[in-house]
């Protein structure tokens, strides 16, 4: 089931020796702040710390923009390549592994670069305000810079292994930043949870990598022995794999290969996606993300909304040339995405911590992105990634602004009526909210709509497109609902904060400027991808087309081959769906407005929706508890059992052997006692019983020795008779 045509996806390589600067600059910033930051902060002042942090970030922003322009300025598909050095490699005979330390920027990366450097810089700026009262200021900026480095590494790395460096690096920074307030045990634990859950995904990622690496260039027999198909050594470089997959002959052969009885492409893609569920907080590994809100709010904005968590989406899109060929994997991606979108949205209903609401919203929106890439609408997924980065970063920063003003209180019950106190925050927050709710014209509208439509229209997955679409649409309704609730609870109604707080609440320029910029983009950012149906030319999709050529063309081919479609290919159908979605969004907003015009406390909500239902949803369906009871506790018990096993059984066996040797030695050392004296003593005891003279038997008696001689000689003679 594959088109037999060669897909012209070859990009023109342009050497760009400056690319390394993009990740390197933040790394330098990190290094300086990590090593000297504490002293600088103490001796010179905080400004040195954030200056050191901001300069590299803006520097890499500038370099990134230069690179982006270089990519954009070419009409043909180009890829900027900066080959630094041989990273891992060896050559033995015909077998060579060659993993260069190379950064590459193609059109997809360019988009990501833009998002990461642009949003990242803004958040850095915001942080200088938000974090100004923190004591270990330097540490925050050091980690932030390190994060920028890792994230840029992730998107620019041109091979699986390079990507994995960034992949784990951002995980580490996430851990470090979540645990920023490490003296609070809960917050430290949240970081640990994030890292470990991410590692579960990484486990799958590595496994997928191993399967793919060998699956590409050789075949396993049923018995498990492996033979190379040709002279080609294994590779993990994206562009090489993409080029291979573009070759129909190769592709046909590859798709037929199985491992463990499963097609290699399916197994590896599912494993990669499992890795993505960890990083991008999808079911079942989403649990860490809400806890990750323990970190400072700018961190939530940068890492847990705009950049890191989208890495999974980026990876799936990057691997479109593999995923597209596995309908099964695509189905899994789309379905898990849809499920997550829906599921997380419902949890968002009753959360009272504003960051928690945003966290679940993020999980839900990430689900959208996966729907997009899952149904083969790779560019739609990426488009949503970008718009989401704007509005969710804005929302988080906005919430940061609120929290800062509220003296680090995050509960809605302490807020209300803040629109007057924090006008700039209110405006940007509102703009982002309508964007996420999908009000037409905002960026969220365009991207979400595109995903929904593409999913409805999808023929490349094993599930009916309308199912995915339906789930997504309901999730959109929910999103509109809880976002409206959030805005109303925070900004409207009577202020519930104490007087002192309200009086001191203020907005700093370094915090509001990023908010305005992001809010602006949240509103208008979508216009780069206005779909044709609305009269646009969807420049965004066309820009990314060459990157997704292999995957997208195959998806299209499948849809065609299966003659799939609901007759809605027309613009009319698209209009209908679009209108339906808009109506759903407005319904959500309206419903929320009806309920939350007036402040509803948690108790009120419980009454309103039914206590039991509210309780279950508020407690996130008790998933954390279930994980604790069903996975973590048994696991810890298992580790303790292993340690005890080690001590008692393994070590015990050895000690027992030693003990037994000692016992034997006692028996043996007293050999005359047992064999000679022993008999004698026994007989003596008998004699004693028989009433004969009582006498103490002593050891070391020479007679036993002579008896030994007698027995020894007769014994040896008999043995010798037998031997000769």
């Amino acid at each position, binding site marked *: 089931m594959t088109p037999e045509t060669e897909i012209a996806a070859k990009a023109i390589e342009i050497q760009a020796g400056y690319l390394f600067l993009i990740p390197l600059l933040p790394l330098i910033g990190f290094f300086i702040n990590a090593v000297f930051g504490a002293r600088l902060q103490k001796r010179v002042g905080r400004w040195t710390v954030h200056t050191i942090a901001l300069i590299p970030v803006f520097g890499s922003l500038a370099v990134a923009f230069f690179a982006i322009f270089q990519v954009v300025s070419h009409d043909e598909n180009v890829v900027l390549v900066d080959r630094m050095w041989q990273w891992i490699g060896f050559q033995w005979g015909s077998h060579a592994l060659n993993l260069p330390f190379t950064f590459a920027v193609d059109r997809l990366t360019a988009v990501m670069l833009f998002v990461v450097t642009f949003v990242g810089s803004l958040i850095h700026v915001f942080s200088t305000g938000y974090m100004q009262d923190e004591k270990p200021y330097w540490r925050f900026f050091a980690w932030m810079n390190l994060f920028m480095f890792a994230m840029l590494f992730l998107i620019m790395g041109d091979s699986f292994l390079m990507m994995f460096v960034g992949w784990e690096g951002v995980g580490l920074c996430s851990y470090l930043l979540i645990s920023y307030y490490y003296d609070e045990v809960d917050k430290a634990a949240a970081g640990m949870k994030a890292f470990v859950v991410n590692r579960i995904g990484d486990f799958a990622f590595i496994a997928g990598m191993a399967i793919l690496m060998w699956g590409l260039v050789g075949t396993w027999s049923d018995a498990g022995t492996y033979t190379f198909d040709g002279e080609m050594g294994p590779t993990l470089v994206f562009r090489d794999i993409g080029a291979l997959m573009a070759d129909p002959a190769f592709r046909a052969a590859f798709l037929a290969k199985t491992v463990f009885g499963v097609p290699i492409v399916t197994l590896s893609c599912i494993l990669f996606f499992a890795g993505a569920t960890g990083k991008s907080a999808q079911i079942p590994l989403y649990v860490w993300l809400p806890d990750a809100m323990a970190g400072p709010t700018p961190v939530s904005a940068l890492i847990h909304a705009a950049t890191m968590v989208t890495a999974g989406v980026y990876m799936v899109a990057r691997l479109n040339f593999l995923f597209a060929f596995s309908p099964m994997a695509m189905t899994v991606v789309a379905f898990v995405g849809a499920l997550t979108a829906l599921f997380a949205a419902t949890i968002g209903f009753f959360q009272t911590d504003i960051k928690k609401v945003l966290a679940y919203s993020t999980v839900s929106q990430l689900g959208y992105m996966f729907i997009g890439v899952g149904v083969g609408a790779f560019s739609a997924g990426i488009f949503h990634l970008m718009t989401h980065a704007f509005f969710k970063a804005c929302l988080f920063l906005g919430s940061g602004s609120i929290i800062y003003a509220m003296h680090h209180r995050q509960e809605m019950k302490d807020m209300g009526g803040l629109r007057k106190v924090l006008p700039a925050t209110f405006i940007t927050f509102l703009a982002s909210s309508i964007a996420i709710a999908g009000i037409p014209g905002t960026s969220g509208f365009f991207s979400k709509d595109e995903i929904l439509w593409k999913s409805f229209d999808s023929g490349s997955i094993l599930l009916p497109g309308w199912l995915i679409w339906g789930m997504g649409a309901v999730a959109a309704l929910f999103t509109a609902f809880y976002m409206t609730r959030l805005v109303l609870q925070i900004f409207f109604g009577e202020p519930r904060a104490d007087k002192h707080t309200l009086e001191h609440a203020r907005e700093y320029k370094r915090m509001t400027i990023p908010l305005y910029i992001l809010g602006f983009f949240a509103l208008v950012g979508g216009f780069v991808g206005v779909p044709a149906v609305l009269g646009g030319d969807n420049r965004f999709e066309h820009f990314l087309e060459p990157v997704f050529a292999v995957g997208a063309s195959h998806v299209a081919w499948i849809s065609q081959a299966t003659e799939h479609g609901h007759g809605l290919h027309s613009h009319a159908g698209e209009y209908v769906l679009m209108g339906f979605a808009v109506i759903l969004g407005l319904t959500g907003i309206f419903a929320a407005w009806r309920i939350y015009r007036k402040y509803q406390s948690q108790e009120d909500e419980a009454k309103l929706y039914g206590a039991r239902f509210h309780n279950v949803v508020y407690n996130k369906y008790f998933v954390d508890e279930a994980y604790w009871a069903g996975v973590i506790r048994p696991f810890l018990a298992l580790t303790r059992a292993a340690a005890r096993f080690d001590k008692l059984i393994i070590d015990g066996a050895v000690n027992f052997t030693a003990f037994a040797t000692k016992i034997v030695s006692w028996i043996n050392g007293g050999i005359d006692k047992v064999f000679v004296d022993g008999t004698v003593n026994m007989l003596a005891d008998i004699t004693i019983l028989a009433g004969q003279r009582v006498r103490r038997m*002593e050891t070391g008696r020479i007679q036993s020795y002579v008896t030994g001689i007698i027995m020894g000689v007769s014994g040896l003679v008999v043995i010798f008779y037998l031997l000769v």
Partner: protein
Amino acid sequence: MHVTLTHFVALASILFVLGLINLATRRNAIGVLLGVELILNASNVNLVAFSRYGIGGMEGHAFAVMVIALAAAETVVALAIVLAIFHHYRTVDVDRVSKMKL
């Protein structure tokens, strides 16, 4: 029944075993030494008998004489030791001569 070499050897064997049993059972150190003499005599009977039967050389006799001489020497030394023991332990009961061994 004709007396053959076998009889002499058998006699010697009985003496030999008696001597060994003596060594293994006597508690008196001097008594033990008596057993040694039995053993040596057993060997001498053998030597002399073999010399007489079938072989005829004088080696056996010479050997026996040597053994007798050595036996005497050994006895002297052994008795000296027994006396030394007696000085220490006021007994020649070899059962009681046992300070060592743990």
